[in-house]
């Protein structure tokens, strides 16, 4: 990465030495895991570029936008309504949560048995290596699981601009009212932050931008239903991950370009894995960059991942937001209607998720499902039991994996995953 970025990182207050070390590890992991894949679609070159510039050019773009008076909002969760952020001409970015960093510092702030995702968010902040969190004008936390909501109380002391959104725990009418009130409060917060007053036109524009991004992903998902799969699960996961970082218009266009290429591949019967390769659906916790461990183990064991039932995947992008309203109130209702459908495991009960996992397994012709639970993630690990039961009752083989971001269990995971793939053949 070029020297000109160094002064930018320095101005953001990053720890340059630690940041260099992070980029080196990230670059190496990307080489070993991504560039080692065969038959990648050419369009993935775009994502390779985005990843190589994820702390460089993209940050420069954000800083340029800031210089032009626009705002940057950072988030950790798919419950933060991006439509509203876009509607005030601000940019929403996902914050870094996919790798262990500054673990000792973090364990001074959080209990050891906190999930790796939360610890990672703190590690990137405490280690001063995340240019996104340092660029953000506002950081939006959300009361999802207990781990997150309690840790935001601590994060509040580390950052000057934390905003916490409350979320319901049930999908009752009362729960929906709470969500509606919080979405409304968020709208006011965005208006105050940006100095822009929302109107119908702006909201419609915001909805359109975000829906288009989701529709591009839907098109990509649909193409993965083919056998042989035209794109690897690792590459599709990367698209799902970059969804949270990139400029939305450019992202949408790039995903469509890949889809055009994949359609040609499908016509020619070309795939990244041989026809008939075991097909796996991943289900469970989100995988943020650079958390590629389990997908890499699965795909280097001869199976292809055909879908992600995950926040960084279909849970995050499944539903579109209605755009037919002709008043701010109507459009805000549509936004609430959209977000209340997210089948996150923090909801009780959460039967929609059991249905979705099974529907996805069928739609993508998955031979089996691997449930990924992040160690200490109580909601998803507890829910993995009923998920496994529902799938096995439907004769869909299921493997439950509980792991974190460390590499120490790779050998055992490989044995489990390989045995599962043998079982599917």
């Amino acid at each position, binding site marked *: 990465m070029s020297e000109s970025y160094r002064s930018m990182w320095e101005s953001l207050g990053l720890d340059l030495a630690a940041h260099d070390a992070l980029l080196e590890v990230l670059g190496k992991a990307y080489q070993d895991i991504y560039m080692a894949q065969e038959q990648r679609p050419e369009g993935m070159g775009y994502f390779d570029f985005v990843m190589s510039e994820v702390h460089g050019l993209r940050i420069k773009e954000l800083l340029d936008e800031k210089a032009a008076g626009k705002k940057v909002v950072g988030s950790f969760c798919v419950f933060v309504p991006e439509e509203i952020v876009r509607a005030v001409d601000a940019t929403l970015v996902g914050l870094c949560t996919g790798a262990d960093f500054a673990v000792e510092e973090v364990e001074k702030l959080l209990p050891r048995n906190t999930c790796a995702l939360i610890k990672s968010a703190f590690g990137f902040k405490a280690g001063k290596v995340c240019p996104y969190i340092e660029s953000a004008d506002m950081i939006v936390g959300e009361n999802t699981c207990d781990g997150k909501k309690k840790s935001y109380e601590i994060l509040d002391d580390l950052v000057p601009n934390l905003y916490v959104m409350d979320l319901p725990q049930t999908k009752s009418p009362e729960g929906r009212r709470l969500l509606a009130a919080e979405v409304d409060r968020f709208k006011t917060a965005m208006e105050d932050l940006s100095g822009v007053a929302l109107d119908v036109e702006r909201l419609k524009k915001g909805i359109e931008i975000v829906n288009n991004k989701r529709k591009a992903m839907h098109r990509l998902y649909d193409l993965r239903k083919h056998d042989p799969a035209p794109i690897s699960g690792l590459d599709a996961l990367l698209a799902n991950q970059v969804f949270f970082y990139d400029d939305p218009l450019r992202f949408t266009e790039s995903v469509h370009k890949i889809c055009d290429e994949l359609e040609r591949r499908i016509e020619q019967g070309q795939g990244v894995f041989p026809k008939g390769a075991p097909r796996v659906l991943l289900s469970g916790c989100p995988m943020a960059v650079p958390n590629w461990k389990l997908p890499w183990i699965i795909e280097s064991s001869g199976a292809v991942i055909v879908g992600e039932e995950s926040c960084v995947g279909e849970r995050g992008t499944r539903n579109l937001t209605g755009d037919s309203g002709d008043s701010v109130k109507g459009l805000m209702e549509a936004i609430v209607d959209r977000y209340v459908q997210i089948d996150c495991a923090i909801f009780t009960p959460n039967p929609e998720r059991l249905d979705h996992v099974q529907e996805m397994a069928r739609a993508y012709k998955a031979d089996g499902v691997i449930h990924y639970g992040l160690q200490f993630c109580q909601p998803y690990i507890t829910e993995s039991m009923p998920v496994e039961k529902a799938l*096995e009752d439907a004769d869909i083989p299921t493997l439950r994996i509980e792991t974190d971001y460390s590499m120490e*269990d790779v050998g*055992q995971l*490989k*044995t*489990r995953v*390989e*045995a599962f793939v043998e*079982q599917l053949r």
Partner: protein
Amino acid sequence: MRCAGIDIGSRSIELVVVEAGRVLEKRQADSGFDPMAQARDLLDGLPYDRILATGYGRHLFELALEAPTVTEIKAYAVGAGLLFPKVRTLLDIGGQDSKAIALREDGRVKKFEMNDRCAAGTGKFLEIMAHSLGYALEAFGPAALQAEKEIQVSSMCTVFAESEVTSLLARGEDRKAIASGLHRSVVRRASGMLKRIEATDPILFAGGVALNPCMVRYLAEATGKEIVVPEQPQMTGALGAAIMAEEMHSKR
């Protein structure tokens, strides 16, 4: 066509050579600190046409000798199927892993459970505990069976169990009774995995830990099921791999 199966485990390496389904040769060695060198020694002077590797070190072997590999879960399933064709539940406790495997009617793997990354509930746990109590590994099970009373050992973690043993000894408890409690703790863990795969009767118990008579007795008590142990339980995986090498050949 002589087909070999090699099971490179964390504690020991087993080698089986078969020809037309008949076992010609069985060998075993410690894995040591350089399992590939040990594997090469084991293969030295042994004629074979094909080889299939399994076990923890299978990928090392794959790289060194370009041999195909299979997981020990599948290899144990195939080996068990040959030894006891009617058994549908398999428990394999080896040096660092334990697995409960449910088989389909046709002998294929239906479901499996495996221990987490730590040594709890594995051969390594028993080995370390035997050492803390001053027993040779072979004497550990028989000693536990002579216990006159039972002491509950609650820690499953090897590190915590070791300090629990130390405090029990300091309290003046009989080491046989402690040994018995330690065996029960490994059995509790194994029977939990067996419950999750909905174990059927009988259960085939394989892997090196199946040589321990106390484990066999306690497992029968805990599960209420008949426990069948092959003559050389630690050879089951290598046998399965050899049979699979033969099947791979005949499919071509």
